């Protein structure tokens, strides 16, 4: 009897967890949708000013030096290459920046489709 109650409680908890996960997934989708809508604007100087500090520094550097690898950006910003790579990929997801491969190197540049 106790076992049955425990199983029912576990099932109930699992259903609650499922419902919460559904909500999180749904919110996540909305967030990425917002990101897309947000990114449909051009990366102009006013958009630069509205970016969070870490992304603004990366984007401003990319504006200044032109097409560059994460390592090139890191040399200017004096952050770790991996950190800059992460920021650049965030900017790519926001569609402010595009990336392309040349040999073994990955280059980033301000999205020309928006300009």
């Amino acid at each position, binding site marked *: 009897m106790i076992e049955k109650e425990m199983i029912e409680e576990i099932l109930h908890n699992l259903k609650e967890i499922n419902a919460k996960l559904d909500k999180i997934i749904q919110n996540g989708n909305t967030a990425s949708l917002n990101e897309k809508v947000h990114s449909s*604007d*051009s*990366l*102009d*100087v*006013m*958009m*630069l*000013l509205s970016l969070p*500090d870490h992304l*603004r*520094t990366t984007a*401003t550097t990319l*504006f*200044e030096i032109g097409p560059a690898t994460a390592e090139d950006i890191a040399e200017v910003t004096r952050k770790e290459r991996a950190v800059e790579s992460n920021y650049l990929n965030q900017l790519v997801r926001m569609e402010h920046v595009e990336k392309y491969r040349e040999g073994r190197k990955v280059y980033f540049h*301000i999205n020309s489709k*928006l*300009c």
Partner: protein
Amino acid sequence: MAFTIAVHSAKGGTGKTSIAVNLAIAYALDGRKVCLLDMDLRGPSLRTFFDNGSSGVSFWVNDLLSGRKGINEVVMDTGAGLGMAGKVSVAYSKADISEIRELASKDRKWQSNALKNIIAGKKELIRSGTEVIILDTGPGVEYESINAVAASDLVLIVHSSTKACSECTEQLVNGVYKSLNKKCAIVDNMHHCSLDEDTLDGMRYGFPVIAAIPCICDIAKRSGEIFVLSDREHEFSRAICDIKDKLESIL
């Protein structure tokens, strides 16, 4: 080392163009190769200082920003025969109302490209030996002005003795200059002593106040005159040379 200075202010009528022109000439008198660009596209006034350069202008800063022309096509040498050890080239913006009206209709994509074109132009100037680039901007947060600020190494903030100017400058400092991580220096132009209490240890908004130029009617009366050329011992000329030296130490 080559560098780019944006001369900017929160409000109009602070004397940006006078300071930008005189500073450019002061650097040229020192033997530097200087380029002065009129980035005040909505109220251009650079040409009033260079009458000899106003005729025969083929291309404008407007053409550079639009990507129609490269920097070398829009700048023109000026100041020949003025006895300067260095050189000054100037690019004017077009004071034609239809051009200014058209500018107001430009979208964000155009402004984004304009920023790229300014930065590309700046690099090209430096490649061809220009040591000092001075961007004379329009006041406030117009796109062209903020693009110029973004493209500069240092912002020379020209501040006038009004409460309105102080309030607007504070907004710009926090919302633009610091956000873009710019080095800045402040010039109190048309300065009144009553404002001294705003300055703490020569600093304001966290930036050095490098000059306080008093309100001198002589400057207004002789508008269009380049004081560092015509009157080198004038108080204004001496202040400009002092600014030039102090900027070097900040850069």
